[in-house]
């Protein structure tokens, strides 16, 4: 099963490598990992998407908790949550494709943020599956470049991850 794990970790140098090192050392899988400081600059928030059986996910959360710099760990996918990912896609936009590309981007609520005579850069935000769907909706041969941030997530309602 796919899980979204959120971590609050001391914003120290090497914190990211402690987490990524743990995943590789114990053969845990990482689909994506994002990290940035929080409103409290002494803390970073990390979102890790991993796929594994319940036993493996249990081990992942326990092992993460065991890291000395980790303050809190929560498996967002255990309850209602929101996930978002940002993608920038550079596409070839010439001739009849130019109008079509604009239309598909609109349908997905994407924004065109860079325009040249022959290309667009489209900015798209949403759950990972929505971004996948967009890439499937356009002609693959027109995709010049894609870059994705990886998933970040937050619990719904009163579920709050804070020190």
């Amino acid at each position, binding site marked *: 099963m796919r899980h979204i794990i959120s971590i609050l*970790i*001391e914003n120290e*140098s*090497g914190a990211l*490598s*402690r987490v990524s*090192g743990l995943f590789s*050392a114990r053969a845990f899988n990482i689909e994506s990992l994002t990290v940035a400081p929080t409103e409290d600059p002494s803390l970073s928030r990390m979102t890790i998407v991993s796929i594994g059986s319940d*036993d493996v996910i*249990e*081990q992942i959360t*326990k*092992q993460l*908790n*065991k890291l*000395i*710099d*980790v*303050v809190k760990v929560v498996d967002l996918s255990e309850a209602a949550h929101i996930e978002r990912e940002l993608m920038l896609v550079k596409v070839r936009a010439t001739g009849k494709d130019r109008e079509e590309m604009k239309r598909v981007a609109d349908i997905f609520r994407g924004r065109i943020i860079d325009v040249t005579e022959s290309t667009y850069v489209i900015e798209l935000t949403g759950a990972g599956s929505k971004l996948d769907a967009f890439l499937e909706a356009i002609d693959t041969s027109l995709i010049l470049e894609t870059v994705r941030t990886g998933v970040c997530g937050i619990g719904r309602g009163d579920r709050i991850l804070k*020190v």
Partner: protein
Amino acid sequence: MQLTGAEIVIRCLQEEKVEHVFGYPGGSVLFIYDELFKQDQVKHILVRHEQAAVHAADAYSRSSNKTGVCMVTSGPGVTNAVTGIATAYMDSIPLVVISGQVPTAYIGQDAFQECDTVGITRPCVKHNFLVKDVKDLAVTIKKAFYLAKTGRPGPVLVDVPKDVTVQKCEFSYPKTISMRSYNPVVKGHAGQIKKAVQLLLDAKRPMIYTGGGVILSDAAEKLTKLVRMLGFPVTQTLMGLGGYPATDRQFLGMLGMHGTVEANMAMQECDVLLAIGARFDDRVIGNPSHFSEVARKIVHIDIDPSSISKRVRVDVPIVGNVPEVLDELIRQLEAAEARPDEKHLAAWWKKIDEWRGRNCLRFKQGKEKIMPQYVVQTLYEVTGGDAFVTSDVGQHQMWAAQYYKFDKPRRWINSGGLGTMGVGLPYAMGVRFANPKATVACITGEASIQMCIQELSTAKQFRLPIKIVNLNNRYLGMVRQWQEMFHGNRYAESYVDALPDFVKLAESYGHVGMRIDKPADVEPAIREAFTKHKNDLVFMDFITDQTANVYPMVAAGKGLSEMILAEDL
């Protein structure tokens, strides 16, 4: 008062009441060594290789429950120390390792004797630090000692760049430390303990299985009280030996790959299992799915939540420090009116005694060749079972665990998790520094001993009267055993050729050497070593039977009840 970083390091060690530091100087720690020189509260033990410094500090801790401290220089000093650190990490031994680093401005420039110490050691420490500012030095060392000893213990490394040891700042050593990200659980959940009590009282075929956690948390007395109170059988892992008196009837011997028939069978066939400070590792329960084929309820007490339900699903997890949990467990058992069912328990003991009747550790000592088991047994008898015994890794380690009966904790010192050959001699050194009057024997083999043989020099410098029991079979014995059993007798690279004359070697270092090749000479030689040469290091080179194998044996990937016994062959 303004102190330099080097002065601060030493002051911190003094504040922590550190008596011995094992180490090796070098360029980046010169200022620290200069400060060591100027005082005499902290004694430095100069080893001959950094690996031995860490092993010695490790055994110092294992045999005393103090935190071991070692000091190494940057680059190769650290890389040499890595094996020692990983060894301590796998067995959860509290260590503080202080390593020198190149000056901060040089970090990342591929400077002379530079390595990414924090990066290299990260996977084998409980935590590590790079101190970039002298103002952080004292609090970091305080954290290192705190982290090493609390929760599940482990090695903590503090990397100190050379310029930091020169910079000055106001020194004050924090009395206490609190970290928002680190709060190990100590007390067990009373509700979970209640469930455990119920299961134990309802058990028909109960079993208690304990590991290194009992030793590390000094819970042997409490464990003994609990086991006697319940009247249940108890077995121990390699790391747990000494946690319960081995000469007691309720002790079934060690379990696992080379465990006794009674321990392994009872482990497999019990209906309620109480696991305490143990982690169900592959050498202990063999194939986890085979183990899980039998329906049984498992109660697991451990300070590390990640050890629970890692390899085997557990029914009643209890996270907490073993002594605190045992106190509560005993309290609740005493308060409970019910007692374990006598009739079922008697039937269970009858079954266990049948397994025990197989006498799986018996061996034949003839007149010609010395059997290695006989040497260990004789050592046990001559020392009255009261020695500190260190071992290296391999067949001799298993024989030591099987035939030396440990009645007390912290007497059996070996590398269980990492299985590091070469630890035996530096371990014996560390034990002797922590227990200056103790009888210390190192059971080793001709291959293992050569991995840290240079420490014979350290042992001479510090007059350490270690008794080395070298079970010399001219083979990498355990490798040879596996090759015989699983690789069609193809002894690839397991014959140890061109061995030194160990007697002369020991003598060249200024020690006493003995070569024993007849069974009749075994006992007199050991007696002589412990009486006439009481104050000397004695290297006893026992020329043993080359074909002896360790039995029983559970082959890798097999189930606990699928043992190969000596009698089957």
